[in-house]
């Protein structure tokens, strides 16, 4: 037996002990969070599954009704309309702020003076509370005293069913794109400058540099933000609730606002739980696809 093998054999029990100790310490640090999550996530999640199979007003006892809430949701025109709105919201929320964010980050990266000022300006809408943003924009979009009215254009952006969803989405995009720009800008700082130099030597135009160097360089950030955007699309609630309440006549209703109405206005908390759980399943599927693609090396 060589010296190395002897040393390894002697230290094996010690190494195992150290590994166990490290694991215990790790779990000890994790324990408070796990307990908290078990209390506020796991317990309520199990209860939500249970209530989604019941006829429950949100008060008092619940009656088990099997899959009735789910079959009702499949045939409910309100749910179909809300899902369609979620889809429209997703397309707009994914494309417009992303495009503006990338453009803004690229422009920022070209600026040499007052860069910090511009970054702060981009960021301001994001740090202002959604309630404040929504209330201000509600006034700005008023057909009788808002920006449009001042410019001689009295369209009722929030009051017209054809534009209500788009108008709220515009406000959300406005508050969101600056945040994306700053994140993309930070990611762009990590791209090797030599790659740009090499591209220039090869005669690449600015657009070609952006396409061939910048975008691949920030892909992990972009993929993560796409994922978050998908999740936030399904969670869209605050701006819609404050600015239109899902109206007029459901024209800006999304699933989350519909759930709220069902739970608190219509006393259909069991049905709302079924809707919530369905959306959770959709989110879980998206997360699973993301993880799968990550493992396949999509981010690299």
């Amino acid at each position, binding site marked *: 037996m060589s010296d190395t093998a002897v040393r390894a054999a002697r230290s094996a029990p010690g190494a195992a002990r150290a590994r166990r100790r490290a694991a215990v310490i790790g779990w000890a640090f994790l324990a408070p969070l796990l307990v908290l999550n078990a209390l506020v996530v796991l317990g*309520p*999640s199990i209860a*939500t599954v249970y209530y989604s199979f019941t006829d429950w007003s949100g*008060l008092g006892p619940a009656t088990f009704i099997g899959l009735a809430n789910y079959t009702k949701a499949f045939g409910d025109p309100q749910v179909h309309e809300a899902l369609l709105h979620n889809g429209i919201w997703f397309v707009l929320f994914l494309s417009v702020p992303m495009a503006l964010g990338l453009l803004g980050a690229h422009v920022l990266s070209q600026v040499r003076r007052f860069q910090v000022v511009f970054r702060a300006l981009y960021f301001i809408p994001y740090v202002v509370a959604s309630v404040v943003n929504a209330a201000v924009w509600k006034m700005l979009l008023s057909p*009788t005293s808002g920006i449009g009215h001042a410019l001689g254009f009295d369209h009722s952006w929030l*009051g017209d069913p054809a534009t209500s969803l788009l108008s709220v989405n515009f406000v959300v995009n406005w508050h969101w794109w600056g945040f994306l720009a700053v994140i993309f800008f930070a990611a762009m700082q990590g791209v090797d400058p030599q790659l740009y130099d090499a591209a220039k030597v090869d005669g690449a135009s600015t657009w070609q540099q952006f396409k061939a160097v910048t975008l691949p360089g920030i892909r992990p950030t972009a993929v993560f933000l796409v994922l978050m955007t998908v999740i936030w699309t399904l969670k869209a609630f605050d701006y819609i609730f404050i600015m239109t309440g899902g*109206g007029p*006549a459901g024209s800006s209703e999304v699933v989350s606002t519909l759930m709220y109405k069902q739970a608190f*206005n219509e006393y259909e908390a069991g049905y709302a739980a079924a809707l919530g759980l369905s959306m959770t399943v959709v989110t879980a599927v998206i997360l699973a696809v993301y993880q799968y693609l990550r493992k396949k090396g999509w981010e690299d």
Partner: protein
Amino acid sequence: MTASLSRRRFLTGAGVTALGLAVPGLLAGCGDDGGAGAGAGDGTGKVDFWIDIQGDANQKYFTDSVVGAFEKANPKIDLNATFYKGEDLRRLVQTALQARSGPDVVRGPSATQTLAWSKAHVLADLTPYAEKYQWSDKLSAWAIKAFSTDGKLYALPMRVDTMLLYFNKTLFESKGWTQPTNRSELEAFAAESAGQGITPFGSSNVDWKAAGEWLMTVFWNHYSGPDALYDALTGKIKFTDPVFVDAVALVKSYFDKGWLAGGVDKYFAVPSQEIGANFGKGTVATIPQGGWFMSQVGQYFGEKAKNDNAWDWMPIPALRPEVKYPLFEMGIGGSLAINEASKNKDAAAAYLNWYYGDKAAALKRMADVPSTYNIPVDFTDAEIPQSIDPRSARVLTSLNKAVETGDYGYVTWTWWPPKTDVFVYEGLEQVLTNKITPAEYCKQLDEKFTAEKAEGTIPQLLERGPAR
């Protein structure tokens, strides 16, 4: 305690929390046992009360003239009031009640929704306290009846509601307009007003989605009439009757002409503060609103609002010759109850008894603050304090007269069952945006009403004829 009961309670509390996580804005709590039987004793200790009173001045008045006065009269009870916004309060109270926690004194929603809470057994039975304190002698019988079911009293009526037509008095005088009393006069005024670029009837559902039911309350009462409403609410006729469908069509036609709110698009988009400001300036001539608006309308007139205009109110004109004028729809805006899980029910009941029991103090509060404290107690016109604003006094005397003569109608938020009540304003949005016709709206309304009536979630109706 059995294992199954324990599990159910756990699931109940956890379920409410789950909804809070799934739906942003929802709050929840975990259940605890709580609960102390109603003993109709005298009560001491701390009483928690969550109330939706807004504005520094209003909160100060409540703190001084209600909380302070009560504690002075009951030094062994500490009334702990917490102020919330109206919509927030309902959500918070509802989740707290389900979790067997929350305030001792429950500020509930309308009669119809408080009934839903009662049926879920989260409100204490007030019958022993009603007997002990003889509340039936202190409160108007019709209002007590609205909050009684299966022979039990589950809440006390908080505020008498009616609908009024507020008008810019200065504008009316300058234009030489007289107060319309019937449909032809009303429409003549509306046409002339709109022709001059003045919105005849200001209205908006931007800040309160349920505002649509105020309009339906007005048109169903003053077009369809209270007799037809009584028949529909008691199941003698259907809401599909043309007399109701035509009322909905009339509302829509007023919107389409731009008389109401300046049109549908503005109704959905112009905030109520802006409408109020335009009302004060005179670019909106009238606002059909509830009696509660009397405590807010003053801010749009006078020095603070930078105009020299004055406001007043008139009864809603009769929209059909068969309907009486003046007619006041009656209802209850909110309720006060006791939490079934309260550990201090006796002290909570002592507060309610103090609040409702002293008629002179109640009338003084009505005189001090317009509409907010208009509890349904029986009083003569002579008992109203002289210090009251004459416009507020006129509401009280008019309602007194309506109750005595039977010339009253029904507000949707008191006498319609809860889901039907929600459809009244949600469905109206669909009519206004041409998604459904007035006939389809009434058909769907009738279906919901029939189902809920069968479930028994409808308050005991104020019957036709003199109610006193």
